[in-house]
């Protein structure tokens, strides 16, 4: 029997699901191998049980947490789709300020009866990745995801094989494409610590990598910071590079010393 697949989204642009909807003729092959029971981008049906839940978006409010927990319970395999689900993505930058500060920044003036925590839509918005709420079986990283990689992951799942998500830096793929290293022409790049699999698409078109796929499992972060400094970035600029998609790591590092303090 074909496995059933359901797509869900939280705080995101839904661009990753759009990538899948845009698979063109391959989408028919995908539909031939799995039974899609919920996919808001292309159909209106809903489902309560599925083998594979593919979830896009970051988790923001308590009501989102609750919904994600329910999805997790209904699914055998839960896949985090894209940078928002994987890392919290750019919206996570908002975690640098309090919920109140953010509301004020966005809406100018806040109206307590509308925007305070009593309204579930405005309750404590803190962006987190899926794995901070529920166990995640696998991640398809990227902003947006690479649709061919999505297909490869799906094939691997159907084969019972470990999904082919690389754990080496973007530099590897960038060199194989014989790109001019951006550092040598006065630009900056997170490629040396960022997870490959995108075929170095941004550096290929002259744009520095922003690590939308997160870091490799063991990045040499200190060496990367040193390099950015050496090539002329200020501490603040380095921080900007490190927080664009990957503020999650910064937050985690900030938590660590705090944990130590608590223990002490």
């Amino acid at each position, binding site marked *: 029997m074909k496995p059933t697949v359901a797509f869900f989204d939280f705080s995101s642009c839904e661009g990753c699901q759009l990538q899948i909807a845009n698979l063109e003729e*391959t989408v028919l*092959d*995908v539909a031939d*191998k799995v039974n899609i029971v919920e996919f808001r981008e292309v159909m209106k049906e809903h489902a309560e049980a599925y083998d594979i839940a593919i979830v896009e978006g970051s988790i923001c409010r308590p009501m989102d947490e609750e919904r994600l927990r329910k999805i997790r319970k209904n699914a055998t395999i839960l896949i985090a789709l894209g940078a928002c689900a994987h890392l919290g993505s750019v919206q996570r930058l908002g975690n640098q300020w309090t919920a109140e500060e953010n509301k004020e920044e966005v809406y100018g003036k806040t109206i307590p009866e509308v925007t305070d925590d009593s309204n579930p839509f405005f309750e404590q918005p803190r962006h987190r990745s899926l794995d901070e709420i529920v166990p995640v079986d696998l991640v398809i990283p990227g902003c947006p995801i690479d649709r061919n990689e999505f*297909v*490869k992951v*799906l*094939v691997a799942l*159907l*084969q*019972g*094989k*470990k999904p*082919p998500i690389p*754990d*080496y*830096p973007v*530099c*590897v793929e960038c*060199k*194989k*494409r*014989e*790109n*001019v*290293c951006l*550092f*040598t*022409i006065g630009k900056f790049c997170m*490629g*040396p*610590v960022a997870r490959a699999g995108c075929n170095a698409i941004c550096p290929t078109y002259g744009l520095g990598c922003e690590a939308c796929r997160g870091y*490799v*499992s*063991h990045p*040499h972060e*200190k*060496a*990367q910071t*040193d*390099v950015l400094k*050496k*090539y002329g970035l200020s501490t603040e600029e380095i921080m900007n590079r490190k927080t664009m998609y990957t503020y999650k790591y910064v937050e985690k590092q900030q938590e660590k010393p705090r944990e130590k303090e608590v223990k002490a």
Partner: protein
Amino acid sequence: MKVITKKEFHGFIQKLINNSAFNVEGVKAKGEKFVFDTLETADELRLDYDVTILPPKKYFLPQYETLMEFTTSEPFENKRPTQSKKTIIVGVHPYDIIAIQHADAYYLDDEISEEYLQKRKNALILGSDVLTVGEKSFFGAMGTGEVTDGFDLYLTDLGDRVVIDIGTKAGEQLLSHAEHVKEASKKDMQRVQKIRQAAIQGAQRDLKLPPNKWYDLLEKNRESSVWKEESDQCLACGTCTMVCPTCFCYDVRDEVDIDMQHGKRLRTWDGCLLREFTAVGSGEIFREDILDRYRHRYYRKAQYLPNRLGFVACVGCGRCSSQCIPDIADPVKLINMITDASSYEPLETTATPQSLSLHIDDIKQGEALHEPLPATLQEVKKLTEKETYFKIALDNNEPFLFEPGQFVEVSIAGIGEAPISLSSAPNGVSFELVVRKVGDVTSALHRMKAGDKVGIRGPFGNGFDVDAMKGKDLLFIGAGLGIVPLRSLINYVIDPRHRKDYGKVTILYGCKEPCEMLFGDEVAEWDRRDDIDHMRTVDTCPEGVCWEGDIGLITALIPKATVDPSNTIAVLVGPPIVYKFCNDILLKLGIAEEDIIVSLERRMKCGVGKCGHCQINGKYVCKDGPVFRYADVKDLPEAFT
């Protein structure tokens, strides 16, 4: 030596481009840098380039290469893609010509790679003198600034005309496409020499120690603090290995289309600076520290490959030096730093031109090194929760000969390939494997049943020397899964046909828990037979489980064996941790280093000493091992870490 005008030279190249029998690749600008790429017009050719981002290695060992295509229903009716057009590579600098000769020596040594040979024979190399020396190039100091062979034609651009040296018959034939080719004048030749010598002089940098002294320098300075200082800045991004013309390591993986039918086995560049390079199926990583990976690259260039091929595997192109962002991959800088830090006395020697004698035309036929033979699972038996037994025979009905201790590569089309120890004594027909479910291939194997098809390559490696063991007492120590390869030797020795050739046989077997014990029937037979001493132990025994044997680590069992150390060969097989402790215990028993035999595990991807993953320092576990004498590996820093 010939000469033609620049205009005629352009006409010549254009003619080649227009000829549908050729695929003409040459040096082109890419931004401010240069690359080898397909020439659309002769005007694109830039013989004034300094150095290309990637070396021409990519034509013989492409970044991504389909080794074979298959359908999952007919898995090993695979077909290999072939090339029809001749590839002409224009503008190859002498250091890159020498690097290609290094690749020849590497890919065409004991095991001749047909995959490589085909592409190599299919190419014509048009060399070129260096007109602009790269800022970081040091080929002058490496003796790689001039070549006498390794090219079909060799070009020196004099500005208004091009001097052409003919290297081969094929080159001469190619030149017949050019018009108005004249004999070069004495003056032309002098200009060529001047250009060549200027390049060599310009590419010296300040290298303090000639390459023939690197081996010795590194030999004496493995623990130098320089390694740590430099590797602390290393991003482990892999760039230095990707851009290197003498880095040949690769990975192999399978890809299947969404139709779940069609797939291919893909080869792609890998690099020893990357963390997963040494990762085995069970997840163990043998070069975890960046320091070790960083150091490995230099030792491979200056010691390991020189040991194997006879020359320093660096040609001074300066690609790593110029493309490493933290600037720690530069061999000149590193060699100088270590020379200074160690107050090593550089002797008065200069670089001698490198010359390699391998001639590609002399090699007629290689072997498709990655092509498995179809085989059938004859018997499948679950042994424990994690281990399953397989009896396999090749479909070609040819005898399958191997030595105890060797291994095979087992292929499942679409999933991949994994090295698995042979577990049976050779019987000439079939063979047995016992496989623990740890990775993709082993998990897929566990889902298969008798009658299913797999692919087999091998047998590979250096097995146990059963002849050298004759007349000796044998002490077998199997820990955990170590019993699996050891069983091939035990069953050979205790076979009534061979038993008389050997002295006392003692078998020690340890595993974590009783439920993990393999080959229960055979273990019982060891107990029964009075020509075998046998003891077994488990680390722990859960309450209520029946266990006839010791409880404790295997290390506690060894001293209980009664051995005559002067006439005993100890064969020890187990996970890495076991070697750390057991070797010492055996030595304390008085067994000589030469008489302790071990079988080591590493990531053996290709099985034929090419892919580079299984190296323990300079040893290739897949070829030199997996069976080693302790005496031969004890001094290798990476052997028992």
